[in-house]
């Protein structure tokens, strides 16, 4: 049995494995969304939660930078309206209220290559990952030296080390990549994974992820 974890499920799974994720809660009511947003603290992002929709942004399924309760309520209703109009309400199992991510957006991925087996990818994240193609790969497991070099190989290294960018400690990213490598070593049934975006500032937080899990005995 193959399983695809998206949205809140993927985030919960990674949280259980000890990865830092942006605080996220799911609901189907406007009222609860407003109260979750207050709990989490503004600004927040609202996004649709779905088992079938992979690219939420293209369908206007993400509402970022919501500064107060009023904006949260109106964003909630807009999302409901949008997906009603698209006739895709059945694809939605709720609305996620999420802490707003801060910092640079990166992608951390896992892929099983037919020759190399499990590999790890690091790169510039967000919705333009495949347009920018600023990525580096290594076979898993990686050592700290590999993690360091993966980061330095990116064009984004210039941004990370820019004098105007003082908050990012590359060692923190290295630690994160090493942790992913270790995680895959003990979860060989992870067949493919996109952690995208993961926000990096003075801390690292996973904003979204999708994970393909293969048969256990693999």
């Amino acid at each position: 049995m193959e399983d695809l974890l998206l949205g809140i499920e993927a985030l919960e799974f990674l949280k259980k494995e000890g990865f830092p994720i942006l605080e996220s809660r799911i609901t189907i009511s406007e009222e609860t969304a407003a109260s979750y947003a207050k709990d989490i603290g503004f600004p927040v992002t609202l996004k649709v939660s779905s088992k079938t929709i992979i690219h939420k942004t293209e369908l206007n399924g993400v509402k970022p930078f919501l500064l107060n309760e009023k904006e949260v309520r109106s964003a909630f209703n807009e999302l409901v309206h949008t997906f009603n109009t698209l006739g895709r309400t059945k694809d939605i199992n709720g609305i996620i209220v999420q802490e707003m991510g801060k910092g640079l957006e990166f992608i951390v991925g896992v892929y099983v290559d037919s020759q190399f087996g499990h590999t790890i990818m690091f790169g510039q994240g967000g919705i333009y990952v495949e347009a920018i193609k600023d990525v580096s790969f290594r076979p898993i497991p990686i050592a700290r030296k590999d993690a360091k070099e993966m980061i330095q190989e990116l064009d984004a290294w210039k941004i990370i080390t820019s004098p105007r960018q003082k908050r990012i400690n590359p060692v923190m990213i290295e630690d994160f990549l090493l942790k992913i490598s270790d995680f895959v070593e003990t979860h060989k049934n992870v067949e493919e994974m996109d952690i995208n975006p993961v926000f990096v500032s003075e801390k690292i937080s996973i904003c979204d992820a999708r994970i393909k899990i293969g048969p256990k005995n693999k």
Partner: protein
Amino acid sequence: MYYEKLNRLFSPNAIAVIGASDSFDKLGYHVMKSLVKGNCRQPIYPVNPNAQTIWGIKAYPSIMDISDPVDLAVIVVPARRVPEALKECGKKGINGVVIITAGYKEIEGEEGKILEEEIKSIAEAFEIPIIGPNTFGFVNITDGVNASFTYEFSLIKNGGVTLISQSGGFCHLCGFLAMEERMGMAKLMSLGNRVNVDFPEAVKYFLEEDEATKVIALYIEGIENPRALFETIKSAKKKKPVIAYKAGRSEKGDAASRFHTGTLAGNYRIWKGALRQAGILEVNSSEELIDTAKVLDICPFMKESRVAVLSSQAGPGMIASDTIESLGLKLSTFSDKTQENINHLLPPFAIRTNPVDMGPAWYSPETILNILKVVAEDENTDGIIFIAIFASANLNLLADMEKIIKDMEPFNKPVIACFNAPHGVWDDNIKHIDGKKGIAIIHTPERAARAMANLYKISLSVS
């Protein structure tokens, strides 16, 4: 046991050529030519049931008819006759076989694949390591054994570079470039279809067993289990510089993937990362492979990345400096003492700081070499690019430098030189200086700078 057999394969005491021939249109003719004209000192046994002598040497109907022991058999008979020939090699107690014959798994249809499986199982039964099938063979420059169908490889200079290739064509390209660029080689080979000697086996042998090999260069198109190669290098008992040229650079990822990672996971992207992870330096052209391997063979490692450029003409020196900096190396700042010494040697008619314009001294080989000497002793410099370009007025420069260099102490820092002149002018002097005292001569300032940058990268990972 396995590596002892590889030892006998690559450095055989006697060689049989199964399918040897006197007719030019047979590969068996060319293999004989390589051995005979390549001055192989070991006994050669042509095997051919239809001839009394081949290349003037007594021929045998079968390898079984040779009474003395034979280490290596080179097989050039048609594909269908190879299994029988291989069986006879096994019975004869041959230590290693080269199968030049093609027509196995690389061709369309089932017959080739079946034949290759047969070869594989015979080799397994008799425990015979095989180079090939579908290879031009191998050349052992160190011991003068040319077990290939191209005699001209015997003209390659003896040295420390071993090329292990997945393509015979690439070996020919690089072999001829090596001659042109005076690169010294220990061995070169194409592994062909890799029936039981694959990259891991070959690399392990040349890392651990072959003293003559100082640098390993790989040409890789695609292999089934790359991790095995990297593990071999990681666990090898000896560290030597390994460089690789990876061909087949498709960026195409997994078209079926709905993930960003899968879509971007092009085979070459992963290879690039994997090579770096394994401490293998990737090169991006045949020239870069030759230049880098040559410099690694001749020059000592670098401690840091500070480079001095000494040029008899300002322009080429500037090009070298530009390339140095664009590749992440630094131009060194000489110590006060070094600068004082240079100022002493050079009149103030040109730039005397790094990059040094030695123009005012270009009639004086003593002065030029004295500058080289003081910069080689400079505590702030880790490598030197040393340039002299021909002009009619400096006709004798290189001949004079050659005389002086002969009595100099070897340099303990890399000196990469560019000496350029029309054909026939400095050729002999270039030939005599190249590779001596730690001086490697590279064709252009840009290529010299790139080779220096690669030397630095390898210095970080190997030393």
